[in-house]
């Protein structure tokens, strides 16, 4: 742990390693998200972007490395993948509850209404009062423009609507950091805009966010920092202007050329 890194970092990963079946996907990635940072992780497919994001809230368990969320630190070693102590499991759950995740495929609970989807986390994980939670959930749904559909089931919604509900569900946890895993990749082109609009608003109000995305133009507009991942390593990082206007790495140059 270097002393120069301030303790206020919202989320910090250090030297993450992760292999799947002997293939090393992450080869020592370190990344710090300060409060109000909007970090975009870009890279070609297979570069480990999604794995990195999923390691941050331990949906994938890293083989080694450290994770620090708002002062709480987890030392990750491979033997934590099997049986875990109850205390460690609690700690993991606590860390996860501070990091809300928005998935590429929405992953709304299909047997619950929109409102129930948004209310479940605050009620059961944060153990907050149901009436308060409902009021807050409705406020959040209104924000993403989904209030009038709050009694409907996810199967009745379009992809863009589902993703907006998923964002409301994530917001309801009042998270330290929001993680977006390619939030628009599963959407029809005409539905991408409505979701990006919501994410942009969140960025502007100062939410700390880390997102994996293929929307280069969007990444350039909203990010405070862009990270380019290549073959499991961070090859380049910096401000969007730096990365998009003057990329240093050949790989990144090639990726950007293919996009525009």
């Amino acid at each position, binding site marked *: 742990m270097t002393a120069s890194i301030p303790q206020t970092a919202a989320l910090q990963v250090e030297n993450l390693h992760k292999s799947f079946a002997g293939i090393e996907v992450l080869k020592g990635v370190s990344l710090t998200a300060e409060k109000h940072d909007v970090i975009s992780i870009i890279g070609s497919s297979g570069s480990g972007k999604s794995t990195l994001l999923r390691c941050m*809230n331990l*949906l994938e368990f890293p083989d080694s490395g450290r994770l620090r969320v708002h002062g709480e630190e987890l030392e990750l070693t491979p033997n934590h993948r099997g049986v875990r102590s109850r205390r460690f*499991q609690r700690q*993991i*759950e*606590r*860390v*996860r*509850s*501070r*990091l*809300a*995740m928005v*998935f590429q*495929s*929405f*992953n*709304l*609970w*299909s*047997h*619950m*209404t929109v409102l129930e989807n948004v209310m*479940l*986390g605050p009620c*059961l*994980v944060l153990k907050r009062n149901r009436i308060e939670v409902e009021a807050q959930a409705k406020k959040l749904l209104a924000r993403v423009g989904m209030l*009038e*559909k709050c*009694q*409907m*089931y*996810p*199967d*009745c919604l379009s992809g863009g609507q589902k993703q907006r509900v998923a964002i409301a*569900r994530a917001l309801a*946890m009042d998270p330290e950091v929001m993680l977006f895993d390619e939030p628009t990749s599963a959407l029809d082109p005409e539905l991408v805009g409505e979701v990006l609009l919501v994410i942009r608003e969140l960025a502007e109000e100062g939410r700390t966010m880390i997102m994996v995305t293929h929307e280069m133009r969007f990444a350039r507009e909203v990010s405070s920092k862009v990270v380019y991942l290549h073959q499991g390593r961070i090859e380049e990082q910096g401000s969007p202007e730096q990365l998009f206007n003057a990329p240093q790495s050949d790989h990144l140059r090639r990726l950007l050329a293919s996009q525009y």
Partner: protein
Amino acid sequence: MMDILTRFSGQLLAGAGLTLQLTAIAALLACALALPLAIGRCSERGLLRWPIRLFVSFFRGTPLLAQLFLVYYGSGQFRLELSQLGLWWFFRDPYYCALLTFVLNSTAYQIEILRGGLRAVPYGQIEAGVAMGLSRCNQYRKIILPNAYRIAFPALGNEIILLLKGSAVVSVITLFDVMGQTRRIFSQTFDLSVYLWAALLYLLMTSAFVWFWHRLELCLTRHQRVRQAPSTATAPASKRVSAGVSP
């Protein structure tokens, strides 16, 4: 033909009562037992998984009648030991023996049905719960089981119907269910039509059950059908048709 029915309807109905009672109690007890065992069956720990697999393969792989004989007549071989354990009152009674057999048999089937349901829960939905910090218990309570039971629902209904019909074997260990009553009536009258009435009675019971189960299923899966008015009212006609509310 009708006179058989009028003369013996009381006995046949009493038999139907016993059939329904045995089926209902066995199905409910099996349902309660199958859930933890199905979860154990899906466990990664072999020590938990293997005994359950063995249990399932035995009770699925042997005839119900053979199981019933094993429990009822087999326990007679151990009368002394069972008496010492204070369990003889249970194994002496053909009703309890039948119930025990049915519970074990149906549990085995329901374990496999539920296992299928548990495995078919969309992984993304579980992951959404995990990512939120939901505890394992709440994941099961709110996400995994509601999904698994909905997926397993038709197959569970099927299993209960099989159990109801299979319960006819109790007539050979002196219980007077529908089949037992029918055999008795036949031995008194030698009128074959009583078997027809018995068959119709079974059909009536299963049909009523199918109707009930279907209603329950409609209620449980409303989230897959209800495309409510607010959204469809403004949707183009073509969409409204494809999203039509089912009868």
